[in-house]
């Protein structure tokens, strides 16, 4: 009938959906500005200061990149995991476990040379985080327990484990004003540049992970299979792909890379482990993944935007006296608008599908 007409409207909707992240982000910022006018802060001034705070100086850029690094790693891993059909919500906990793993390696082998120490610590973090997330994977595969719930709950368990560890078994041996471990030593410190806001080499690891994710997702044959499972487990099974295997690998991979992000954050910014060292990185990265459209190609800009937003608003607190809750408000708005975009797209797809179905 009017097939072409339908197709056109479908492409338009597709395009809008693709832009929905950008639209969501803009609307989020505008709403934030609206609230600030209520507080008597000029909108234009707000945006100018925000950009200055995020990119206005080498120090600001360094801070932004440092913040964006873990976002990139976790965001890319999460986007892929979701496309594999696993709804892992445990990023926050996995990041914490990654930090713990890296710390345990650092505390266990204090004398290692740097080229060995850092990879080993990062690997330790990846391993521990992957092991941690293996628990919900096993629950799901053998008992059918939904991973959304288990991974969500395990976030709190993980943060509490880290808190308990830094008070108890690996607590600081010298006196300290807050619960933390001993210093790891210079060998466990990622090289950083003081002049550009202590920018550390983690950003290179992060970019490498994103490139690897894009390669896996778009070039490697396994990426094709993983995406097939995400779209249609039935068709994948028929094609000889095991959705169970893909699910498990997606989850474990997500765990390992969140662990890597935790390790990078720990070795890049701190030289000891403390209870709240990576607060919110996992949660924020979930939003980054969402903002990327669950596509590794979108992760880089999404992570940079979010890193910039975080740094910018932290600065605004000082310069304009903006409340820090504003960041949460913008985050919330972005999630709502991006999700709305997805929902609208799904609704339209269902509508487009219907007439074809009826003929049967």
């Amino acid at each position: 009938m009017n097939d072409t007409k339908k197709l056109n409207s479908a492409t338009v909707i597709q395009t809008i959906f693709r832009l929905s992240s950008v639209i969501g982000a803009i609307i989020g910022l505008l709403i934030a500005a609206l609230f600030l006018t209520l507080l008597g802060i000029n909108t234009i001034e707000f945006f100018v200061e925000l950009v200055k705070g995020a990119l206005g100086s080498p120090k600001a850029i360094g801070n932004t990149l440092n913040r964006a690094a873990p976002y990139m790693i976790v965001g890319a891993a999460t986007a892929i995991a979701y496309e594999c059909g696993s709804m892992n919500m445990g990023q926050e906990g996995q990041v914490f476990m990654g930090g713990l793993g890296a710390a345990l390696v650092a505390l266990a082998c204090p004398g290692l040379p740097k080229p060995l120490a850092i990879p080993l610590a990062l690997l330790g973090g990846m391993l521990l985080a992957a092991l941690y997330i293996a628990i919900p994977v096993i629950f799901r595969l053998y008992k059918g327990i939904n991973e959304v719930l288990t991974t969500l709950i395990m976030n709190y368990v993980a943060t509490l484990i880290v808190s308990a560890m830094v008070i108890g078994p690996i607590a600081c041996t010298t006196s300290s004003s807050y619960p933390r471990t001993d210093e790891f030593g210079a060998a466990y410190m990622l090289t950083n540049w003081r002049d550009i806001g202590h920018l550390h080499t983690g950003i290179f690891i992060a970019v490498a992970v994103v490139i690897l994710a894009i390669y896996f997702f778009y070039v490697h044959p396994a990426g094709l299979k993983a995406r097939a499972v995400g779209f249609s487990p039935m068709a994948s099974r028929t094609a000889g792909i095991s959705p169970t295997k893909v699910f498990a690998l997606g989850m474990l991979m997500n765990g390992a890379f969140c662990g890597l992000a935790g390790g990078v954050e720990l070795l890049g910014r701190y030289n000891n482990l403390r209870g709240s060292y990576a607060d919110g990185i996992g949660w924020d990265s979930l939003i980054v993944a969402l903002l990327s459209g669950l596509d590794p190609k979108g992760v880089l800009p999404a992570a940079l935007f979010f890193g910039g937003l975080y740094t910018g608003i932290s600065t605004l607190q000082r310069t304009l006296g903006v409340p820090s809750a504003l960041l949460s408000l913008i985050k919330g708005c972005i999630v709502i608008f991006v999700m709305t975009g997805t929902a609208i797209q799904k609704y339209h797809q269902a509508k487009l599908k219907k007439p074809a179905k009826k003929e049967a």
Partner: protein
Amino acid sequence: MGNDYMVEMQHITKSFGKLIANNDVSLKIKKGEIHALLGENGAGKSTLMNVLYGFYGKDKGKILWDGKEVSIKDPDDAIKLGIGMIHQHFMLVKKFTVLENVTLGMKEGKWIEIPTEEIRKRIMELSDLYGLNIKPDARIEDLTVGEQQRVEIVKALYRHSKLLIMDEPTAVLTPQEVTKLFEVLHKLRAEGKSVLFISHKLPEVLEISNSISIMRDGCMVENMENRPDLDERQLANAMVGREILLDIEKSECKPGDVVLKLDGACCDGVNTSCGVTDFSLEVRRGEIVGLAGVDGNGQTDLSELIMGLRKQTKGKIEFLGQDITHLTTKQRRELSLGYIPADRLNSAMVGEFTLRMNMAINKPDKAPFGTKWAFNKKSAGAYTREKMKEFNVIAQSDEVPAKNLSGGNQQKVVLAREVGEKVDLIIAVYPTRGLDIDATRFVFDTMLKARDKGTAVLYISNELEEILQLSDRIGVLYEGTLNGIIPREKADVTTIGLMMAGREAEVIDK
């Protein structure tokens, strides 16, 4: 008043694009009768019912209700008139009780207070009157399929339906439940309700109905009273039509080595499917073995069992003499075989993927699609375009999502992938479902060409006509077992039809 007919549909025409689903169809249903509507899949039965129930508008024609012309724009109108529809898939909330489900369906609303006690009383009255045996407080998920169906009947009766449309009501029932349903239908008729009974099962229709209408290819070909001398043969002939729609030229069959051998294979069913029981079959090079059978008699189960998608509980499967019983689907995919699953858009392809990716999905890491390390867009694209040309796929490019293609073109892509290279075995399940004549023809040609080149073909379909045209040997699937297999020469519509209904082949021979 004094009108004999509950509903009269006059000269209804309804088309979807180029497809004419109903062409000048008339149907009259008397008050207090069970009227059967017979026809093969795709004959237009469902369309006609959906027009009557207000799901579809009609292009032409009119509907009289109790002698007066009415316009039915949506199901609400139909319900108000007193038409109740009982779908094959029940529209019940599983976690709710019977009472709550009936309440949900209520149209006249006392919004503030739901008259629970009244509804409960009425359900019990209806249940007693029609022998439905329904307890208002039972939870739907605890009920059997037959009981759920009776809840649907209560729902319809509660809304004062005078005409009940039942879409293949026996398809999901066990024989015992069918008997029970028929008792209920007799009581409904005794109380002056009309029932429109849609089916393609001949014995049932003869047993239960007062009058029979038969549709074929969107047209009404027969309207008759049920008489004692009427038999399944006559109905089958009217349903399939004497003239064969597609002429097929077949060369002589020269069967060679056994390619696929099933030896007492069993698997359990999933959800409502019946599984496969003690299935033994051989398919040889250069022959097409057709498996006929009414939908839901193990077609999907059997094909998935052969492909390793089901857990095999007993027996053995051999491919070219090699025992493949314990191979995974992935390992079986590496054998020289092509599999065309029944559910095209859910099992055969990923709708969101491009044609190129769909072509590659079985082995993206092998040439020409790619290597172990990288999927090669260029060579995969070139191969896909070449195959698209060969298989006559009409699409803008190899980069459009599969879901944008018509059913026929989608099926051609599946064919290109599965049998584009020479294979030793083809397993095709309902390969022509939903396809137009041209695409159907293409599927036939592909199967025959493969057969002539020495491929063994297992062709599973519920379209009897196709089976008769294509097959060299014909087997019948009945409740997950092979209910006899006979050479093409000995097969005709009646024999196969009876075998499909569960009779033994030897008994029919006599």
